[in-house]
């Protein structure tokens, strides 16, 4: 309110003026001051400038103007009157008025644009009604009687509200407050989403600096005797390379201990350690080492496989080099260094027949065709075909007629014969000998084709004629390769397709016999292949080598070994597959035969499962050789092994 503030001081001025002037006036007149002095009214005073008076009093007499001095008087007054500076003319009356001290102050304040009264607007606040509890009442006034009388108005108001509540017009405000509270109580965690991930936490984790090793007895100035090195040791320690180490030295008193020469260096290195060495928390891999081993089924879940030695076939007098079971599983033929071939009954271990030969038997193979009864035997440079005449008589007589039904075809003169076929007669025929195929070189291995008509012989020293394929019914031999491919170890026919597997010293070549071309070349990681076996499915091959390795090739997968087993300690002599069960075995010079479970899945995406299941031992060492041959029984999960101890053993 600006107007009120401005009016208030004006009134005050009037009042004060009254105070200064009134005493004079009240001496003679009690009437209002304005009326007395100024009788002319509110007219311009210039009108009375040339007159001696200003107006008239009630009696009509001129009211004279006060005496006005000249300039000299004025000057004198100015000099002599101390109040001259505050004496002003009242224009309405023409009288001189002496301003009071307060009036001067007001004028001065106004000139300075201050509050005219000059009062302090910001006087210190006296907080009477403060929150501080005072022991004395502000006012001493007792409570009024009325304050004890219940208010009639309140009663009215309350009764209205009660009525409204009863009628349901007014809801109790409680529910609302509960709701409000709920709304208001929707707190949230300010730092909730601020959780760090575990990894950043780990990074944040403080890694304390490595602690300096505390000095021990050795660093003491007065170490125990046992810590003090002898002269010799001292020299040795001084001569030792690497970080210079403190040599324990004894001093009689601490006072005599010299300054530590390496102090600066040690501190410096410590600092280097602290800020240059990367400090990193070592994350320990909490891995159970057993989890790293691939999950293989337990051997006992892979039954049946041969586990125990059941029969020993005794009778040979020399190393048994080779064995071959008949396709029905009733018989087994064995060839030995004692220049005999024996036929054994599997169930009892009884030798049924013995064929005498001219030389040591290198290889033997029973015709895989169950309707033929022929065994082919390799000795030195010839192959001998015999009819064992065991089993079905009809079959053996049929076999004989098949062999004798051959009719001589005119030999082609331009082709040199690779082999010579001779027929046994008379007494030898009676004994079972049928045919003899004379080769030019020594034969190391012979094998039948699955159909039982073709058989192949391997002549390692035959150079360009190292593999010969013979046909029984036509009595002819052919040389499939014109060039030597290396030292051929053995050849095998593919069980289903017209392929021929030729194992040389380091490679296995697979030839397509129909197209007359090389189909694949398997590279084994071995130095010298000793034996080879083809899975009955035809897509997997195992080779054994003289450097005691067994390699499994998956022909669909690669030309490199799919799996290599190094369980034998000496050279492998023979590897073989079982025809029915998912088993394969390897025989070695270390007198053991290892049976492995080798499951081949028809699903092409699934790789073969290879689990070694059993080590069979039983043969005894003789002549520096161990087990020379192993063959599975054609139907039972049994294995025959031939050893240098001139026995054949049956494991079941």
């Amino acid at each position: 309110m600006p107007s009120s503030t401005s009016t208030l001081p004006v009134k005050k001025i009037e009042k004060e003026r009254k105070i200064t002037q009134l005493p004079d006036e009240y001496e003679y007149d009690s009437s209002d001051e304005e009326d007395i002095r100024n009788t002319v009214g509110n007219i311009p005073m210039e009108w009375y400038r040339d007159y001696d008076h200003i107006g008239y009093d009630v009696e009509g007499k001129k009211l004279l103007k006060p005496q006005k001095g000249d300039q000299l008087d004025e000057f004198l007054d100015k000099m002599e009157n101390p109040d001259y500076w505050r004496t002003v003319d009242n224009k309405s009356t023409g009288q001189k008025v002496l301003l009071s001290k307060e009036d001067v102050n007001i004028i001065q304040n106004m000139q300075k644009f201050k509050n005219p009264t000059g009062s302090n607007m910001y006087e210190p606040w006296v907080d009477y009604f403060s929150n501080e509890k005072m022991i004395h009442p502000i006012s001493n006034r007792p409570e009024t009687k009325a304050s004890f009388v219940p208010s009639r108005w309140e009663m009215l108001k309350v009764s209205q509200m009660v009525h409204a509540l009863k009628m349901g017009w007014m809801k109790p405000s409680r529910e609302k407050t509960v709701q409000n509270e709920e709304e208001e109580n929707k707190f949230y965690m300010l730092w909730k989403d601020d959780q760090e991930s575990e990894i950043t936490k780990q990074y944040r984790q403080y890694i304390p600096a490595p602690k300096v090793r505390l000095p021990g007895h050795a660093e003491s100035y007065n170490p125990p005797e046992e810590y003090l090195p002898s002269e010799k040791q001292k020299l040795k320690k001084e001569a030792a390379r690497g970080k210079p180490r403190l040599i324990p030295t004894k001093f009689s008193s601490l006072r005599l201990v010299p300054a530590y020469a390496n102090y600066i260096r040690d501190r410096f290195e410590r600092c280097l350690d602290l800020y240059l060495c990367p400090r990193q928390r070592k994350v320990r891999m909490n891995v159970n080492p057993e989890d790293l081993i691939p999950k293989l089924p337990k051997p006992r879940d892979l039954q049946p496989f041969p586990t125990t030695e059941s029969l020993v076939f005794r009778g040979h007098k020399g190393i048994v080099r080779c064995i071959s079971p008949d396709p029905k599983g009733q018989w087994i033929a064995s060839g030995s260094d004692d220049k005999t071939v024996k036929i054994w009954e599997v169930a009892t271990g009884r030798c049924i027949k013995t064929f005498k030969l001219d030389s040591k038997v290198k290889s033997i193979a029973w015709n895989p065709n169950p309707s033929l009864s022929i065994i082919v035997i390799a000795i030195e440079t010839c192959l001998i075909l015999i009819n064992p005449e065991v089993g079905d008589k009809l079959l053996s007589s049929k076999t004989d007629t098949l062999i004798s039904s051959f009719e001589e075809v005119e030999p082609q003169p331009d082709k040199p014969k690779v082999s010579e076929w001779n027929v046994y007669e008379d007494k030898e025929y009676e004994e079972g000998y049928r045919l003899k195929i004379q080769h030019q070189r020594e034969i190391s291995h012979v094998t039948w084709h699955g159909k039982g008509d073709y058989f192949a012989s391997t002549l390692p020293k035959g150079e360009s004629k190292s593999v010969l394929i013979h046909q029984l019914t036509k009595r002819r031999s052919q040389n499939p390769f014109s060039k030597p491919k290396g030292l051929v170890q053995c050849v095998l026919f593919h069980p289903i397709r017209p392929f021929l597997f030729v194992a040389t010293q380091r490679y296995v070549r697979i030839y397509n016999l129909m197209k007359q071309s090389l189909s694949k070349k398997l590279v084994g990681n071995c130095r010298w292949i000793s034996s080879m076996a083809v899975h009955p499915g035809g897509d997997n091959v195992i080779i054994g080598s003289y450097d005691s390795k067994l390699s499994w090739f998956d022909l669909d997968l690669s030309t490199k070994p799919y799996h290599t087993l190094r369980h034998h300690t000496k050279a492998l002599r023979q590897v073989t597959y079982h025809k029915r069960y998912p088993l394969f075995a390897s025989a070695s010079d270390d007198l053991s035969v290892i049976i492995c479970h080798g499951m081949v899945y028809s699903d092409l995406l699934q790789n073969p499962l290879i689990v070694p299941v059993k080590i069979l031992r039983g043969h005894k060492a003789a002549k520096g050789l161990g087990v020379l041959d192993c063959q599975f029984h054609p139907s039972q999960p049994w294995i025959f092994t031939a050893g240098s101890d001139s026995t054949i053993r049956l494991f079941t």
Partner: protein
Amino acid sequence: MEDENTPHVQTKFFTKQAQYSVPDTPFSVPVSAGVEELTSLINGLLTGDEPQKEDTEVIKFDFLVHEEFLRKPLNEFLDQKDISSETVLEIEYLEHHPAPQPENSLLHDDWVSCLQGYSKYVISGCYDNTIRLWSTEGEEIMTIPAHSGPVKTVQWITQDPDDKAPIFMSGSHDQTIHIWQWNIEKKEVDCIVTCRGHTESVDCLAVDAENERFCSGSWDKMLKIWSSASTAEEDTADDSNTTAPKKKKKTDHIVPTRVPILTLSGHKEAVSSACWLNSAEVCTASWDNTLRFWDINRASEKSQLQGPKAFFNISYSALNGTIVAGGSDRFVRLYDPRSNDGAVVKSVFSSHKLWIAGVAWSSTNENHFISGSHDSLVKLWDKRSPKAPLYDMAGHEDKILAVDWSLPELMMSSGADNSIKIYSYSETKQKIGDS
């Protein structure tokens, strides 16, 4: 002797042998008691009744707890079988079986692959293609060059012990079965019929109870049923007989050839053993790990039991209706062809160390059978004691190839040591007392 602190078990003794019965009041027996203590207890009870007898010899007893022989102290047995020692234990006892005595050894020239006893005689088949006739006293009666291949099986057809001309037959590697008639008085053996049909070696022969038919199993996986009559109308005279020239010379007349009545195929491997369960049912064992049951009347396979290993020999007991089988592992297994529940192997008898080549039930004692193994031991078993045999009969020096218990008092075995060993089997007095 008996400590106060040793725990006792309440036992009740009973027996089926009436002459040894004791009152069935429960006895408190220390659990550490074994067979000897129990035997002395029973003996004490028995002699206690008749104190006037003086030099009563101690009778040995065997004790059966829960149908199994007690072979160790009671507490170990109870622990093993998990039987509570709180309840009253019922123990059956029977007279200890007397040990079999070696009777004789019949020496051959070659491995003896098969044998069978009849009346006072034994025939054996040999790997040198001959059949030999022996008396049970060990006297060689005759050697018959019977076949052109090793003889694999022999079988008596005649069961009547007083027959003057008993008939037997033999199967061989030469794929034939010959039926022979032996005239005891004339000391002549004639081949009366040759049975042709098998294409591989004949491994087993079995005659049915009425002696009308026999069956043969062969390596060619077939089971064939033949008539066992000495003469039959359908037999054809075979004059183009080339396979048995020796026999022809000997018998000097044309041997009629017989063909099978029935051929049953089903086995996937060689049939190694066969036996008649009754007149219409044959059980065969094979190398394909199965036992098959054939209904002869309907000429079909009835059921089959899968075994763990190839079977070599089975034996059927008419007394208890079960089959024991031996095969290409160390265990003799007891099968019950009548049971239809999952566990077909009733018990497994483990004590042999090598293949079981032969098994044979006793024809008189329903609990006893023998088994012969390649470990050159014949074992006498009680079917209630699968862990330990009653007796081991050593004597062979090589593989045993066959066992026979056709004669109730003689257990016989033949083997690769070219001999037949005969052991006597004496029945316990129980049978005498019963009968």
